């Protein structure tokens, strides 16, 4: 939510009314939109295949709770696994890249290049290599989430203030000590910014993986229900996906808050990517 702070940063010391406005207005808007959607669907007699009213989506969510939950679990576990693997791999590779000038100059342009090309298009290749299954979804997710984490972390690791590094060197700190006590803490906001982009990418990867492998998961439900013209079920699955996405993002935001407080670091940088 660093974005919000940045845009309304002018009045940081806010009175109560302002907080109320900042919370109530958007929520109220969302509520009005949903109400409008419901009313329009009913008065204009929109065919439920085209756009079911929110109440129909709610009915699906309530009645098919067990089935939907069954399909939510694989998507959730794939997302978490994909995110963890992408983060560990991304940070490790960024550390390797920044520790050697040769490695950096050799590999970094390639990694930036990979940022630009539409990696999602490789998904069918992963099916050829790994078959249709959960592994494919996870690997697709890792593959597309990995690059923003590497680039962001690498940027962070080289962004420590030169004065501080000089001080460390003149105090005869070892490379490892400098890394542990200076470079890494300085890089933390960048790492988390990369992870936030990464987690939205992981969701894209998992859903697209499920679209095209069509074995299980919410992506599968969406494709299946869309093919059968059950739009309410599609929307119900999307609601659950949104919950997963926001939940994971929230966990990372919370972790960022805790870790940065632990290191006594600066405020999180805004990750607009």
């Amino acid at each position, binding site marked *: *939510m660093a*974005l*919000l702070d*940045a*845009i309304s940063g002018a009045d940081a010391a806010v009175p109560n009314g302002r907080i109320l*406005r*900042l919370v109530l*207005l*958007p929520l*109220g*808007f*969302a509520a009005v939109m949903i109400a409008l959607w419901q009313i329009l669907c009913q008065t204009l007699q929109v065919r439920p*295949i*085209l*756009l079911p009213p929110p109440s129909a989506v709610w009915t699906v969510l309530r009645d098919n709770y067990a089935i939907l939950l069954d399909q939510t679990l694989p998507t959730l576990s794939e997302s978490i696994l994909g995110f963890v693997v992408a983060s560990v791999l991304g940070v490790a590779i960024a550390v390797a890249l920044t520790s050697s000038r*040769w490695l950096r*100059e*050799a*590999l970094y*342009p*390639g990694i930036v*290049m990979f*940022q*630009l*090309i*539409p990696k*999602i*298009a*490789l*998904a*069918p*290749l992963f*099916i*050829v*290599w790994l078959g249709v299954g959960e592994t494919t979804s996870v690997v697709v997710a890792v593959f597309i989430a990995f690059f923003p984490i590497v680039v962001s972390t690498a940027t962070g690791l080289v962004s420590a203030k030169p004065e501080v590094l000089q001080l460390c060197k003149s105090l005869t700190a070892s490379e490892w000590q400098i890394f542990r006590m200076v470079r890494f803490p300085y890089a933390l906001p960048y790492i988390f910014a990369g992870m936030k982009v990464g987690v*939205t990418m992981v*969701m*894209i990867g998992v*859903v*697209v993986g499920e*679209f*095209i492998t069509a074995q299980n998961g*919410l*992506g599968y439900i*969406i*494709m299946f229900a*869309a093919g059968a*013209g059950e*739009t309410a079920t*599609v*929307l119900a699955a*999307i609601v659950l*996906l*949104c919950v997963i*996405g*926001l939940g994971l*993002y929230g966990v990372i935001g919370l972790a960022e808050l805790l870790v940065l407080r632990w290191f006594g670091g600066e405020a999180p940088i*805004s990750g*607009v*990517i």
Partner: protein
Amino acid sequence: MSLELPAAGSPRGVLAIGRSVRRVRPIILPIVTLTAVLLLWQLAAVRLHIPSVLLPTPSDIAQEMWHALPLLVDQAVPTALDTLLAFAAAAVLGIGLAIVITYSRPLRDTLYPNLVFFQLVPKVALAPLFVIWLGYGSPARVAFAAFISFFPVVISAALGFAGTDPAVLRLCRSLTASEWRSFLLVRFPFALPAIFSGFKVAMTMAVVGVIIGEFISSQAGLGHYILRAGSRLETADVFAALVALSVLGVALYGAVALAELGVRRAYGRR
């Protein structure tokens, strides 16, 4: 990059060589790495007898590209057109909404958190809905790609407009510049870097959106080609299309970067 050969052994000459090598290294090294990777791939695939269904050799892929080039170009045209259309729509709508948000406080308070919310949720999941609404044709893909590339533009542009130096804005007001003039002459140029960083993200998102759209609905385009070749296990074909797609992606991104350079120069800034 002139590498003048000095008299052997003279320390200054060695230094000069060292310096020019260091200057060329960032360009040479990535190319050398890429060549090495391709060579290794070729050797490994041939030596280990990896079936070409699993991993075709780079030479197979190059051959496939050469043969299928007219076909690939044919398929790239609809993909490129859809992407450009989607990007244009996202750029215009995104900047429009960002301007509205910047000038109306209640609207900003109302809309901005919802925009951030949409930025975070997996919008890709909505792709099948666009097919239901707009059919199997190109409008569904364009609309979907515009939908997912719209949010980064709004958010970066809004941040850019809001980040204008307040002192400059006050100066404009005290010089009795109209809102419109101060927007055109101050806010917009100030926001250009942010707007273009949004554009760059939007362009990559637009390509992704069109490809996903082609995966699930299309009869043409590179995404369709990739999926079809993949399901026939013609892996060299898949790779050839991927190369074409990468070229397209980088070219579109390059076009945005070039436009940024041009626009910023026109505004007299680097």
